[in-house]
């Protein structure tokens, strides 16, 4: 491993971890479905960041390639997610996930 990069990439990794945590906790604390979903996207991007960082550390391109794939997948996920959230919103006139509470116990 290169001496020059020995410290700096770790900061990115820490950032990725922090972002991931923010996302993960955000899902718990926010009510709006859209925001929830954004939090999940944040987690995906945290992973992307980690991938790219590792790619940089390892000195190969695999991580960066993966990041591209993830972005595409995330985009597809957005489409599906928004479609579902929208259809619920149209019925309920609410984007709060706590209102969708018929299925339980």
């Amino acid at each position: 491993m290169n001496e020059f990069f020995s410290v700096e990439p770790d900061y990115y990794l820490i950032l990725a971890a922090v972002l991931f945590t923010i996302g993960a906790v955000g899902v718990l604390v926010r009510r709006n479905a859209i925001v929830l979903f954004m939090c999940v996207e944040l987690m995906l991007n945290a992973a992307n960041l980690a991938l790219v960082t590792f790619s940089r550390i390892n000195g190969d391109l695999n991580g960066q390639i993966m990041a591209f794939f993830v972005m595409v997948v995330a985009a597809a996920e957005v489409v599906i997610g928004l479609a579902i959230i929208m259809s619920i919103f149209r019925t309920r006139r609410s984007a709060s996930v706590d209102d969708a509470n018929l299925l339980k116990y």
Partner: protein
Amino acid sequence: MTELKLPSIDYAALAPILIMLGAALVGVLIEAFVPRRLRHAVQLGAALLAVLAALYFVVDNAGERQITIGGAIAVDGPTLFLQGAILVLAAMALLLIGERSIERGGAFVAQAAVVAGSEDDRRQAEESGGATEVYPLTTFAIGGMLIFVAANDLLTMFISLEVFSLPLYLLCALARRRRLLSQEAAMKYFLLGAYASAFFLFGVALVYGFTSGIPGRTAGVDFATIHAAVADSPSSPVLLYAGMALLAIGLLFKAAAAPFHVWTPDVYQGAPTPVTAFMAACTKVAAFGALLRVFYVAFSGSAWNFTPVLGTVAILTMLVGAVLAVTQTDIKRLLAYSSIANAGYLLVGVLALNKEGLSGTMFYLVAYGFSVLAAFAVVTLVRDADGEATHLSRWAGLGRRSPFFAALFTFILLAFAGIPLTSGFTSKFAVFGAAIEGGQSWLVIAGVLTSMILAFPYLRVVVMMWLSEPGESTPTVSVPGGLTAAALMIGVLATLVLGVAPGPLLDLANGAAEFVR
């Protein structure tokens, strides 16, 4: 930079996957160009045809052992076995999805965009034919599953996970009746599924980081690299174990293992029953196929480390599934908890970590898939004016009203309870035997204890059907259309045959139980 080397691609080995994905695209085209009244027949025909064609190539590939398309896909015994299983079960699920004679227009909403509960919605529920988009969605999902069980690196696995999950999220939202529940199920499934796949992805990143610096290899997320890294990577093992844990979480979520099972009852209950059946059978196969490959191929070097953790998860899963099933009042929820408990039994098989465990788990997946499809097929038949009557109290005295279907369902329940001469028994035997052989007796004992608890809810349904007097509100059992009848009979027969003569399938599973590395 060396010169660009194109990876070799064995198209024959990939044929099943390609066929399914192609069929899905064709389905989209059909949706665009075929007249509305023909669409249903054409879509169903095309989807079934594609499944059969894919199945043909799976059979044709028997004995194949190779890693192709640049190490992304492994075609080997488990892959082919599980692909075959997914295809057969998916074909049955398609039969259920395609059924339109029980209810006018089938189980699916005509236009998902119609506001639930509105006047339009009521009209569509009464009159319109169901959406035919379900077929391309289903075929996409099947295609994704086929890749998922064959994926030989974590990226492919992640992508295929999304490929089969995203259509499923949508399918869940498409129920014709009780649309609020359906949409809620879809939203929950989607949010939690996305959440879990984010964990998975972060796990991928960590494992990728762990693979750096192995002598003679570049970093990567293909299983061979990971396997090598587990053996001698200079990186911090924290990366490995945190990554492995996060990967496991993503997969256990799909497999519905506790405490990642929380979505299961809600989604199983809210989703249209044919979709529930499809998820219960095929998703389970796919999820465990991936679990097997990840833990048998990539991480087998650290088995000593993950078995206690996953073993605890298995016990928790069995316990949660069994205990919570006891007080369920909705048949679909009950089957959901049963499915959770079964995930626990499957994990026991996985954790045997030997050849018997592999073949036993695969056997279990097939056997369980058949039974659970048949069970949900019966659920689609028990109806009243408002659609399916899923509350258990409504099933009282069903045995008097329609002894034949009640008998079939009873048989399925006995199979779930693990009574001999049903596939439920042979499959439990297979995984428990493997686990004892693998030195995991504690899991078997937990499995046995939870089986005792789990027998009670099944028996309660039997009591309801046979020993209670029929009430005023006992629903009728619709005469099934040919499609449902076919799916139901196949499921029941398979449950019986695999219980009485499991030999051939065992041979098949044993023969297939070796991963290519």
